[in-house]
């Protein structure tokens, strides 16, 4: 029910702002709608006995977790550097790749030991990979970022892009562009083991365990140790930290070193799971990990882990869920959608009547899309089938859409920013 007063307020509102709010609401509503339809559809498929088997779901979850924990490990590096220096270190994916590549050469040289005493060989490979990654991260900081301390953030960003290209193609020039394949894993890791009711491949379990252990270690380091405190202090305020007697340069180097070490661990795990590595191995995982860091709340260590795992799970399960769209909505479901939408309309009208101008657009959005929802639920949806052939092709798209949706609803990521960053545009 709109009173003339409400109408006048709507008309008096700044048109662009209104339109933008309205559009944003539409976008959010659409994403949420598709998401819930996908979930409801998948559940219903399951109830109807047409869904995936339990074993398949277990594959999806474990696959997503393993991938996600590695994203999380890499994301830690992005997050820490962002927390301390406030810029995106694009070259971090390449730090990860150099670790993985070094790990290959060591593993290759230790091929005999790899068969006979796997834990020892694994330890050596991890250590050398961590050493290489840490060294590369620190050298990059020394050459490319330290001279730019205090520069506007776009400048180190461009430097890091340059560094990323340089490291990629330097590695290509040094070791060539062929795929380097890690030695075959020992029997035990290739078999499936039963763990918490899930049938997990040994290697994925190893990946998850090692990743969790490293993250726990890092968390302890940052939150319990002296150096960790210094890192947090610097990320709060560099000037004050240095007045308090903290050597900012050392803290920055430590941050890069720790981020590099995490990337090194991720590099070996990655190569053990996916087996091969070449000079471009770091590029996409780097971007995904950066996405994960933002998704979880950049600068926030727990957020990086959570973001990584979320991203991994979405990538693994998203196409399957979208596949749930195939399911035909029965009448009852249509009525349920309509009822929800009607509630939206009422809610929206309330907002429109009472709200400040800033929320008017959202309120109108509720009304408008609620009405559309009622129509959809009653008229269109029952019996509608949407099939998306080749849904797995869209897995990155789904992941990015979720990212956009999350950031629209919660602009500081899932867990929010922890390490403070001064507002600079």
């Amino acid at each position: 029910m709109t009173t003339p007063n409400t109408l006048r307020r709507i008309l008096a509102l700044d048109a662009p702002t209104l339109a933008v709010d309205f559009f944003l609401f539409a976008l959010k509503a659409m994403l949420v709608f598709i998401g819930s339809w996908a979930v409801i559809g998948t559940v219903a498929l399951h109830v109807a006995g047409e869904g995936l088997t339990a074993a398949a779901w277990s594959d999806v979850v474990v696959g997503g977790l393993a991938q996600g924990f590695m994203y999380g490990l890499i994301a830690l590096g992005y997050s820490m550097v962002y927390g301390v220096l406030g810029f995106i270190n694009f070259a971090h994916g390449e730090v990860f790749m150099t670790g993985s590549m070094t790990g290959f050469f060591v593993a290759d040289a230790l091929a005999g030991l790899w068969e006979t005493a796997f834990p020892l060989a694994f330890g050596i490979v991890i250590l050398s990979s961590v050493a290489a990654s840490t060294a590369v991260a620190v050298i990059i900081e020394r050459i490319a970022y330290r001279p730019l301390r205090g520069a506007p953030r776009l400048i180190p960003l461009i430097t890091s892009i340059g560094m990323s290209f340089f490291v990629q193609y330097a590695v290509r020039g040094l070791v060539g562009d062929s795929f380097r394949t890690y030695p075959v894993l020992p029997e035990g890791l290739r078999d499936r083991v039963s763990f918490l009711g899930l049938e997990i491949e040994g290697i994925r379990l190893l990946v998850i365990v090692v990743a969790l252990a490293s993250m726990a270690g890092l968390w302890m380091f940052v939150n319990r140790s002296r150096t960790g405190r210094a890192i947090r202090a610097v990320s709060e305020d560099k000037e004050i930290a240095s007045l308090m007697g903290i050597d900012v340069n050392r803290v920055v180097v430590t941050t890069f070193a720790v981020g590099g070490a995490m990337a090194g661990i991720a590099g070996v795990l990655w190569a053990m799971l996916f087996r091969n590595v070449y000079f471009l191995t770091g590029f996409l995982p780097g971007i995904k990990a950066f996405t994960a860091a933002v998704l979880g709340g950049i600068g926030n260590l727990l957020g990086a882990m959570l973001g990584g795992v979320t991203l991994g799970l979405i990538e693994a399960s998203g196409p399957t869920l979208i596949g749930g769209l195939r399911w035909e909505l029965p009448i009852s479901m249509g009525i349920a959608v309509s009822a929800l939408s009607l509630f939206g309309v009422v809610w929206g009208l309330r907002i429109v009547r009472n709200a400040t101008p800033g929320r008017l657009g959202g309120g109108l959005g509720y009304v408008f899309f609620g009405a559309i929802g009622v129509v959809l639920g009653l008229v269109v949806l029952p019996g509608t089938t949407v099939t998306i052939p080749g849904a797995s092709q869209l897995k990155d798209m789904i992941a990015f859409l979720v990212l956009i949706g999350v950031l629209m609803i919660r602009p500081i990521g899932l867990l929010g920013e922890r390490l403070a960053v001064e507002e600079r545009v």
Partner: protein
Amino acid sequence: MTTATWRDAVRWGALGGLIVVFIATIGMAESFDARKVIDPFLSLGYLSLLWVPMALGYRVSHRVVLEGTAPTPPGARDIALGAITGTVVAVILCGYILLIDAYNLREVLVNVTPTLGHYLTKGVGLPGGLAFVLGVGVALGAAGGALHLVPGRPRSLGLRVVLWILVIGLVELLFGSILREMGLKRIDSFLFNLDRTIPWYSAVAIGLAVVVPSVLLRGRAQAVRARFNTMPASGRRRVGFALAAAAVAFGMIVPVNFGPLLNEVLATVGLFMLMGLGLNIVVGYAGLLDLGYVAFFAVGAYSAAILTSSAAPMFTPELAFFAAVPFVILIAALAGLVVGTPVIRMRGDYLAIVTLAFGEIARLVFQADWLKEAFGGAQGIRVDPARIRTMFGYVLAGVGLIALIIGLLRWWAARSLARERGDLDSRSAAGAVVAVLGAAALAIGLAFPSFATWTARGIDTEQIFRFVLVFVAIAAFVSWRLESSRVGRAWMALREDEHVAEAMGINVVTAKLTAFVTGAVLAAFGGALFAIKIGTIYPSSFRIVQSIIILVIVIVGGMGSLRGVALGALVLIGVLGGPTQPGLLREFEGYKLLIYGVLLIAMMLKRPEGLLPAARRTRELHQEEFLQDAWIKAKADEMAEGA
């Protein structure tokens, strides 16, 4: 006054040694060997090594001049230091040669071929070869140091000669084709051997051709420059304008005479320039870091392809090119809104990641099998030659004429009013934009006067180049006028501080969306031209790397500076090439991104404001109000001290 010591020489030498070893190890030296620059002395492979001791030998006794102290006069000391540097470089290289001779490193380092040691000693063999390397190192280092003894003018002349020879040697195809197109086939066949290398006598001839006119015309050039510098600002602007107009006119005529290869390169450069200009509005003016800019390029390409091509999978209106342009603009503007709206309330790096996400989503949508019926999926869409109906051309010319007149009147009126009141005018900008758009429409309309349907084929680089040039000119003009318009000033306020801008009464939402939409439309022009030029579009032409390279063009050229963006595109795309576009230096293909990386890092460390920074930014630098600009100024001061 600081003086270099032998310690510096050793340090620089060690650095040089590492560089030389690195270049040899990544296989650059050997793989470039086939490419002779000057026949028979110098191949690109040796050139990639030899510059190191010479440059560092020069650098080691580089003088930092401090105010109030006189620099030490150059002397034998410079030569000695240079020689030490060269020796250190050579010793490290010798150590490396011995190392690769003793151990087979090829298991890990694939480019350390069995022939590398032989190559590095220029085939002399081991014991003698080391002496040879040492000798060359010392000589080049000393020569580098000795450059300080040469007075400034001959030195710069000599440098210019070397540069010209290298440039002509490296872009021999382009140079040859231009010469032939100009009817100078004789010169072409004199300058180049049959296999397109430069014989030594041609190198000498090029040197003479550079030196002689330079010596003869020395005084005049200086006089012209001096006169230009003493002109009043308005006069200088007028000259600048005339020069730009001349450049555009020249650009319209040149392709007819200078052959397809130049057109091809320039058309590609122009496409990137268009995108660079668009991104410059988003990043340079409004300060919105967009990492997914390629999405708009893709939208432009696909919408143009679907609207004009008969081979589009689902919807084939088969419009003529200029009839499709309004729709392309509309679709691109919508795309700009769709991407721009969700990010309005995001700042900094959230903006970066969300735009990057949109860039990937665009590619994935065009690639999806799901939408294959609409966009062709992995197979892409074949694009027909652009059809231009010239009836439309006359209509365009008529509309353009009217717009020109109205625009000029409006511009004149608003300007004179503003003069009287003595304040800044913003309405005159709008008038000028209308006038120039009108002029452009008139020109396009009149340029194609026949009644028959005229087609611009992608393979006809001359037509494509003119197309691109027209659109680049429009984009440049729009950017130029927008820069000092009200919207432009709103953008810049936004860039400096969003909160303050909002407090000052700027509508942040509108300003941001305008930036996104303008940027999107310019990129979509690029996309549409790209589709026509290439004749076949696929999703894989629109990857993240493309977005990154466009950003790099803007930053390297100079954020917010039109000339900078143009120069950035010319240098990076024209010379080195884009991610999937070969540049003029096609031999560097395998190492292109490596060189890109080094250039970017060096650039950001030494000249972060870009090649040709914006005048407005330079003005702002003096206010020292903003952290960003203050820092850049500090850097610039450091540079000035160094020079």
